[in-house]
C-alpha cells in the first residue's frame, strides 16, 4: 500500500504517488451512505450521547517520509536529522535554533478538529521565516487543504482514503478570501484588497 503526497510548487499542487507506508495515515474503514429519512427526522434527545472527555493521541501517526525515518520531537532531539514531526501541542519555537539543519518539518493533525498545527505553521513561516518544506500529516482531509495551504503548508500527506484528484482540485481552485488573515506571501489564494 502506498500513499499520495500533494506538493505545492510555485503555488500549483502536483500529485506525487508512492509515499511509503508509515509516511501517511492509513485509510479509515469505509462507511455506508446516510439514510436521509433518519437524518431529516432529527436525533431526538441527544443529551445522553455527549461524551465530554476527549482523548488525544500522544504520538504522531506517522514515522517516515520518502527519504527515511521521520522522528517525533523527543527522538529528534536525541539524534537531530533533516526531518522532524511535531504534534499540535508541541511548541514549534523549540525548533527555531535548529531551522538551518532541517529540510522537512511535518505537523500532525490527529483529527480534522484539531487546529493547533495551523498556528504552528504560521509561527514558523511568518515569525521565523522558515522556507523549507512544511508538511501536514495525520488526518489530512481534502476539505482542510485550502486552510492548511493558506497557513503556509507546502505538502500534504493525504490520509489513505482521500482522493488525490479532489485534493489537487481543492488546492488549485482559486478560492476568494479576504485579506487580513494571512501574509500576502502565503502560497495560495486569490486575495484582494478591500477597496
Amino acid at each position, binding site marked *: 500500500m502506498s500513499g499520495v503526497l500533494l506538493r505545492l510548487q510555485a503555488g500549483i499542487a502536483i500529485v506525487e504517488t508512492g509515499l511509503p507506508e508509515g509516511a501517511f495515515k492509513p485509510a479509515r474503514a469505509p*462507511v455506508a451512505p446516510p439514510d436521509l429519512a433518519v437524518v431529516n427526522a432529527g436525533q431526538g434527545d441527544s443529551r445522553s450521547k455527549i461524551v465530554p472527555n476527549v482523548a488525544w493521541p500522544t504520538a504522531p501517526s506517522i514515522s517516515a517520509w520518502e527519504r527515511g525515518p521521520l522522528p517525533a520531537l523527543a527522538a529528534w532531539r536525541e539524534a537531530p536529522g533533516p526531518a522532524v514531526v511535531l504534534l499540535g501541542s508541541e511548541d514549534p519555537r523549540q525548533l527555531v535554533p535548529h531551522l538551518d539543519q532541517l529540510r522537512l518539518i511535518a505537523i500532525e493533525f490527529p483529527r480534522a478538529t484539531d487546529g493547533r498545527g495551523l498556528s504552528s505553521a504560521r509561527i514558523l513561516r511568518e515569525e521565523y521565516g522558515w522556507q523549507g518544506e512544511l508538511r501536514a500529516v495525520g488526518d489530512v482531509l481534502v476539505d482542510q487543504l485550502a486552510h492548511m495551504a493558506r497557513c503556509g503548508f507546502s505538502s500534504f500527506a493525504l490520509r489513505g482514503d482521500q482522493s488525490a484528484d479532489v485534493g489537487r482540485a481543492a488546492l488549485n481552485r482559486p478560492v476568494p478570501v479576504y485579506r487580513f488573515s494571512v501574509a500576502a506571501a502565503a502560497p495560495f489564494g486569490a486575495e484582494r484588497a*478591500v477597496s
Partner: protein
Amino acid sequence: MYQHDAFDRSLIAARAEQFRDQVARYLSGALSEDEFKPLRLQNGIYIERHAPMLRIAIPYGVLDSRQLRALAHVARAHDRGVVHFTTRQNVQYNWIRLEETPDILAGLAEVGLHAIQTSGSCIRNITTDAFAGVAADEIVDPRPYAELLRQWSTLHPEFFALARKFKVAINGAAEDRAATAVHDLAFDLYRNDAGDVVVRVKAGGGQGRTPRLAAVIREDLPWQHLLTYSEAVLRVYNRYGRRDNIYKARIKILVDALGADAFAREVEAEFAHTGTGPALLDQATLDAIVARFRPVTLDAPAAAPVTDLAAAASSDFQTWLHRNTAPHRAPGHAIVTLSLKVPGAAPGDASDTELETIAALADRYSQGELRVSHHQNIVLPYVRRADLHALWQEAVAAGLAEANIGLSTDIIACPGGDFCALANAKSIPLAKAIQLMLAPRAEEVGPLRINISGCINACAHHHVGHIGILGVDKRDEEWFQILVGGRSDNAAALGSLAGKAVHRDAVPDAVSRIVDRYLALRTPGENFIDTVGRLGADPFKDAAHRVEEAA
C-alpha cells in the same frame, strides 16, 4: 449598511458551491458522519431533536428589506413558515431537510446571506449594538469595525478548528447594549484624550455551565490593531485552550486558569509577532470600508414633534412611543423596535407574512434597513418622528405593535425542548405562561428582563437576566432554577440562584411572587434591577423559595 460588491458575492457563492459538494460527498458515503459534522456545523446546520436546523448569519445584526423577503421565502418554501431570531442576531429555521440546504444557501447567496461560521468551533457571527450608527449615546460607530472583524474572521485559515466556539462582540456607545461582558472576546470603542479611536479589549466572558464575566486585558489599544490583537488572543487560545474536555474548552477556562493578568501577558507576547502582520489596519483601509456603507439621508426637520391630534390623544400610541422608541443621533428621527414578543407567541418567532410586512414597513419608514437585536426583536433604525404615528398604525394592523420592549413580557427564550436536542426543558411554553401571567401588569412593573434557557448551555443568557430561568432535568420531569440580579449592561453581573429548583408548573407563580416582592420594596420610579442592586438578591430568593416549598 455595508454593500457587497462582486468580490463579496463571489466569496459567498463559492462557499455555497463548496458546501453543495460536501453534502453530495456525505450523501454518497465519501464523507463519514464524523467528517461531515464539522463541515455542516460551519455552514450552520445542526441535527436537532426532530429535524435539521439551519442558522443564517446576520452580520452584526444588520439586514435590508430584500434580505428579509428572501428569509421569508425560505421559511415558506423550505420550512413551516416560521423564522426564529436568536440571541446572537442570527436567524434559524427549525424544520429543514438536509438535502435542500445547498439550494437554500445558493438562493440566499443571491441576496448576500449565508451560513458561514454560524456554528462549529470557529469565530462566530460578530455581534454589536442593534442601535449601532444611530444611537444618541454613541461614541464611535462600531459597524465599520464590526465589518473589518467579519472580513478578517471569515474563512480565517488559522482559526477554523478551535477548541470550541468563539463569540465576539463590539460596542461603541456609552450604554453597553451588546452584552460584551459575556463574550469570549469583546471590544469597547472610545476616544482617547487626543480624540483618536482606541479600544478596550475584554476576554474570557461566557455563560454555559461556568459563567464568567470578561476581564479587561488591554486598554487604549489603537484601533489599527483591532485585528492584530484579536489574532494574538485567538492564537493563544488556539494553542493553549483545553481540548481534553468539551465543558472546559472555552477561552474563559483558559483565562481563569492562567489568571487574567498572565493571560494578558501571553497575548502581549504573541502580539509582539502579530502586531506587524497582515491584519494591521490603516486609515485608507478603514476609509475604504466606511465608503462601502450605503449612505442614508437623515434630513428630517429638527423639531418634528408628533403633532397628529389622533396620535396625541391615543394612550396606546403614547405607551408604544415610550416603550418601543429610542433616542436617535439625528434630529427629527427615532429608533423603533418592533416587538416579536406578543404574549402567548414563541419569543423571537416571526411568520413569513409578518416578515413581508416588516420588510414593507422598513421600505416605507426606515430606508429599507433593519436590525436584529440580541433581545430577539426587530429594529427600524431610520424612522422620521413625523412618521411614527403612521408606522404605529400599520404595525397595529399587522399585530406588530406590542408595546413591551424591555418589559417583563419581552422575554428572551431559546428554542428549548420543543426543538433542541440538548434541552432539559421546554422554554417556549414557560415563556408563554409567564408572559400571559405578567401581561396585565407589565406596564406597572416596568423594565424587567426575563431570560429562559432550556438547558445549561444558556443560549437565552439566563445568567444575565434580571430574572434568569434555567431548565434542569429531575427524574425526567422539567424543573427550573431561578436566578435573580443578572444584567448584561455596563454594570454587568451574573445572577445568583434563588433557592432550589422549582417544578415547571410552579415557575410562573414563583416569578409572580418575585415581582410582588419588588413592587412592595421599590422606591418610587426604581427599576427591578436597581431594587435588587440596593437590597441584594436575598429578599427575592426568599420570595421564590416560599413558593417552592408550597409547591
